[in-house]
Every structure is written in structure tokens, then in C-alpha cells.
């Protein structure tokens, strides 16, 4: 169903430029991993705090608000460096069940982060039953660990 879109991505000038260059693709991959690292760091610190671990000297909301700006900038960098990687190999990814799985998981993780996690993380301490932020932190960690691992495994089993 999506094949024409994947073919269009594959045919873009930027995809061809990436395929023709020795350095462009690997350097973009490296910057993508750096952006992912910062993004994961901001997720983990917020999730640890929601689980009642890590920087417990500060309120959940204070940690979450500070982490939000990092998440936004790192997320943008992940997107900017991820898109050309996708378009360059669009036809390969079209056949990859692991890539499709990662995209579903990524969609679920993003949706959860901007809805449930966002609301719970900035709620004042004591406003919610203590199990709620803990459960949200655990689900968030599991989702983002799943995204990171499935993304890496595409190289081998995609």
C-alpha cells in the first residue's frame, strides 16, 4: 500500500546524494546516535524520578520541565538525522518487518510521552496516587528501551 511513497523517498535527490557519498551516511548515522543518546538521557532521568529513584531531591515537575526542553531539541535532531537515513534506504526498509515494528513502537512511545507521561510528569507531587507515576515511568522506560533495541537490531535482522 505504501510502496509508491517508499519509491518516491528512494528517488529523492538527497537519497541519491547520500548513496553517492562515502562519508555523508555514516556521519549522519553517528550524529543520529548522539541525538538519540541525549534524548534517551532526558527520558531516563524523568522516568527514574517518576519511579522514585534518581534526583529525588527535586520535584517530579521540576525535573520534567527541565528535561522537556532537552527532549524537544534532541528529538528534533533525531528526526533531522533520521529522515535522510530512511529515505536513502527506503526500499530496503519497506521489506523490513523489524523496521515496521520499530515504527509502530516509536509511534506508541511518542504518543504515550506527549499524552500520559507529559501530564503525569508535571503533576504536583502528592496529587496522584503514588503508583501512577511509578507505572508511567516503568511503561515509558520499557517503550523507549524497546525503540532503541529494535532500531539497532534492524542492522542485523532487518
Amino acid at each position: 500500500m505504501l510502496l509508491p511513497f517508499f519509491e518516491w523517498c528512494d528517488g529523492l535527490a538527497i537519497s541519491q546524494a547520500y548513496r553517492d557519498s562515502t562519508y555523508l551516511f555514516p556521519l549522519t548515522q553517528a550524529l543520529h546516535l548522539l541525538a538519540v543518546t541525549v534524548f534517551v538521557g532526558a527520558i531516563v532521568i524523568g522516568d527514574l524520578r517518576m519511579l522514585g529513584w534518581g534526583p529525588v531531591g527535586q520535584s517530579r515537575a521540576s525535573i520534567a520541565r527541565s528535561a522537556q526542553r532537552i527532549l524537544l531539541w534532541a528529538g528534533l535532531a533525531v528526526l533531522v538525522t533520521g529522515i535522510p537515513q530512511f529515505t536513502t534506504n527506503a526500499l530496503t526498509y519497506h521489506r523490513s518487518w523489524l523496521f515496521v515494528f520499530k515504527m509502530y513502537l516509536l509511534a506508541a512511545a511518542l504518543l504515550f510521552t506527549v499524552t500520559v507521561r507529559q501530564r503525569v510528569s508535571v503533576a504536583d507531587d502528592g496529587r496522584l496516587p503514588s503508583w501512577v507515576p511509578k507505572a508511567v515511568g516503568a511503561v515509558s522506560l520499557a517503550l523507549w528501551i524497546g525503540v532503541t533495541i529494535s532500531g539497532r537490531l534492524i542492522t542485523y535482522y532487518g
Partner: protein
Amino acid sequence: MPSIVPTFVWLEGLAWTTALRESPYGYPLIETSHVASIVAFAGLVIMMDLRLVNLAFTSAPLAQFQRRLFPWQMASFVPSTATGILLFCVDPLRYYRNVLFLAKLVFLALAGLNALAFHLKTYRRAEGWDEDPEIIATARLAGAASLLLWSLTIVSSRLIPNNWFK
């Protein structure tokens, strides 16, 4: 000077390293665990660095923030180091001449020395970091150096498979 190559040849020829190298799951799973744990570790180190340079989590006292994050940094550092050593043992001849791998080790060592120097300088004064201008200046410098060194470590790690400088 005796060559280290025979040791790497011996290491590569061991039954368990051969089994891991030839297994369809061994190497990919170790490598994926390595990436996941180093991303978690470096991610938390970068969060601390952003606090040190006063760009994030500024309401958190420096020493307290550091103390609370340290166990979690270590919890991800141990598996990332263990899987990193394992990866090298599985394919030592592939790595030891790879310039980008050696660059990664250098950046890692410098990042470790930077963290050690910062801890030694501030260790005796665990409290009152946020009021001491000397420690604030040292913290900013150490944080900026750490941000740079960890960024270079991550970037060089991802570039290792390319082996551009043969």
C-alpha cells in the same frame, strides 16, 4: 618490542569467541546490549554535564544531583564496559588496527580522567558547591569538557564499522 598480535590471534581462536562470532545471535545481541547500555550511561552523564554547565536542572544543587545520578550512571556503565570488552574479544584483529576504535578509546580515557580530576578537586568539599565560585567555575569547565568528550566518544563509536583510515 614483542607484538601483541599473537595474543589477539589466540583470543580470536578460542572456542567461545569463535562460537559467539559465528552465531547468528551472539554478536548482534552483545552489540545491541552494548549500544543500549552506553546510550543510557552517556545519556545520564550528559544530563549531569548539562547541570554542570548550568543549562538544565538548574534548581537542583550540584552535589546532590551528582550523588543521586551516580549509582544509575554506574548501573549502566558496568554492562556497557562488560559488553564492550566482550565485543573486542570476539573480533580483536578487526578492532586493534581500526583508527576510529583507537580514537574512541582515547576519548573514553580522556572523559574518565576529566571525571576523576573533577571528583578529586571537589571531593573534600561535598557540600556548598553551589556557593563556591571556584567549584562553580571548575564544574562548568569539567561539564563542557565532558560534553565534548562524550559526544566524540559516541560519534567515533558509530563510525568504527567504516574503518576509513586503513
